[in-house]
């Protein structure tokens, strides 16, 4: 059983929505990182969750930066700390929009240059802070305010894009599995170089489900196989327990899609597209883990 430190770095005065995944995720990320940490944050929900001047809800320094700039800013900050022989954790904490869309250039550059930092993307599959518009991370068929008829395109696979940069460590996680997230952040921070953790962050106002079901939603994502928990350490894939179980006996995908208002009225084709994409990715990870490819 993982020993989770009691020290809190996220105080109670946040402006998070009831049922917010990000505040749950951030709590465990900061517990794993400890006080010698700087968060670099582009525009995202947490820009507001952190609190409004003159308050801050975080007990670590938080550097807010322009939307496109987070990973580049982290590059500079990390270079400076390391030159001064400081081992301070530099953690980019960004939403999906700031990662897969407007932030992707900086992300790619930072990884290509082997910046020593941890990039955490908490993914609520839309531009949450501006009112739930579609992002590149929005899945097929999901209704957002700019895809009122359901998104026609697929979810951009940021994990494969990051993988192509050959980072020493990358992983997926989910707000419903905080211990797993804690372990992954701890492991990532013990490795030098660019690290990436992609956290599924169910979002009550965006996904349109009751606020008390956030953890349930995250568990369903994993148990239906729609989200796979895995790690890739120096190129070697490990599929984590709950996803291993889901591969053997996945729950029907309707159990995950059904309770979410954003998928209301989703076409059969879109559901099939979502499922086949998920199965294909899972299969590839499986084969990779076995060493077949």
């Amino acid at each position, binding site marked *: 059983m993982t020993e989770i430190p009691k020290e809190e770095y996220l105080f109670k005065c946040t402006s998070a929505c009831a049922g917010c995944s990000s505040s749950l995720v951030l709590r465990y990320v900061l517990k794993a990182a400890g006080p010698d940490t700087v968060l670099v944050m582009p*525009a995202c929900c947490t*820009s*507001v969750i952190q609190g409004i*001047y003159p308050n801050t809800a975080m007990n670590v320094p938080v550097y*807010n930066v*322009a*939307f*496109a700039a987070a990973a580049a800013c982290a590059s500079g900050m990390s270079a400076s700390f390391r030159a001064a022989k400081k081992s301070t954790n530099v953690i980019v904490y960004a939403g999906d929009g700031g990662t*897969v*869309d*407007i932030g*992707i250039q900086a992300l790619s550059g930072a990884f290509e240059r082997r910046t020593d930092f941890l990039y955490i993307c908490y993914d609520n599959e839309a*531009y949450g*802070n*501006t*009112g739930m*518009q*579609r992002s*590149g991370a929005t899945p097929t068929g999901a209704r957002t*305010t*700019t*895809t*009122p*008829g359901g998104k026609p395109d697929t979810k951009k696979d940021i994990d494969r894009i990051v993988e192509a940069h050959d980072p020493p460590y990358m992983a997926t996680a989910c707000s419903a599995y905080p211990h797993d997230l804690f372990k992954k952040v701890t492991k990532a921070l013990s490795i030098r170089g660019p690290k990436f953790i992609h956290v599924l962050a169910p979002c009550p106002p965006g996904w349109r489900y009751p606020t008390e079901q956030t953890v349930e939603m995250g568990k369903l994502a994993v148990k239906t196989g729609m989200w796979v928990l895995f790690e890739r350490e120096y190129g070697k894939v490990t599929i984590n327990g709950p996803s291993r179980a889901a591969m053997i006996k996945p729950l029907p995908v309707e159990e995950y899609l059904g309770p979410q208002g954003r998928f209301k009225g989703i076409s059969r084709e879109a559901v099939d597209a979502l499922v086949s994409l998920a199965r294909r990715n899972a299969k590839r990870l499986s084969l990779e883990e076995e060493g077949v490819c």
Partner: protein
Amino acid sequence: MLTIATGNKAVAAAVKQVSPEVIAAYPITPQTEIVEQIAEYVTNGELKSQYIPVESEHSAMAACIGASITGARTFTATSSHGLLYMHEMVNWAAGGRLPIVMANVNRALGPGWNIWAEHTDSMQERDTGWLQVYVSTVQEAYDTTLMAFRIAEHNDVLLPVMVNLDGFSLSHINQSLETVDLGDFIPPLRLPHAIDVKNPRGYGPLTGPEDYFKFRWDIERSMRDSVKVVESTEKEFFRRFGRSYGFTDDYQCEDADVVVVSMGTLGKEAEVSIDLLRKEGIKAGSMRIRWLRPFPKLDLKGRDVVVIDRDYSFGYGGILADAVRSKCRADPYSVIAGLGGQEVTYDDIAGFIRGRRPGEESWFGVTPDV
């Protein structure tokens, strides 16, 4: 048809009627309702545009440029950091002589993050070759967006037009809106330099020191010619639809001893200050500047001038005050107010006028006795 709408929805309603072929946009508070409403129109078939949900504002303007050079009518909307992020391409659009129309919802710049009204964002684009207009009511936002397309696309202009509306103060306020039956008010777009594979040209290649300046002069010449086009467009709009606005919105300026110059919603609220001051026996007037580019001729001779800047140029001064000072040879009392959505009421504006100190600059909330 009299209905109710916010500034954002009014812009979207105008865009729907104008029906651009391509719309590329990226969400940013407080512009989001514009793109969301447009997405809804496109989804339910009311608007037959290609709607491109781009991955950043730089790409939004780049996509509009790509569409526009094929001869398509295009539109985008942004705000604050989004506008700044597309700055390079904003320049490109004007230099490329493209009649793109953009709605900018004026918002302050970070850090710290501030989502409320301020004009510094569009002021920082004032040198780019875009025409710029600032509106103060929902009706004006709608009417001006319609006129913007006609002006931009006029053969004597062929420059992009930025329609500015105050974040939250106008973008999110519900006021009455009378929509019009456009008819042929906006003729079809005929871009003379549109891409034509039968007549292939190179667009914007390396241009040396002996030639480049001529293209820059070309932009300025069109900017000067646009004055007549703005006038005639407004005249035609008035003829067909019964409303006109002008380069400046003057309220009781004719016999005024002191005129307050400002832009956006503050310029409307200033009229209430004028009414108050007139009751006190002070002959004040309000001049709300609508068109910032091309900058209009202002009639300010022989009166005291108070300029309210909802913007600032650090190390220099209020940008509007500077323009008034140099263009009108006036010595204004420059008040910096409303930054980051700072609340400025008609009482405050009346106070600026009563307490004016010509030639000085005051920061509301900082300088004592402003």
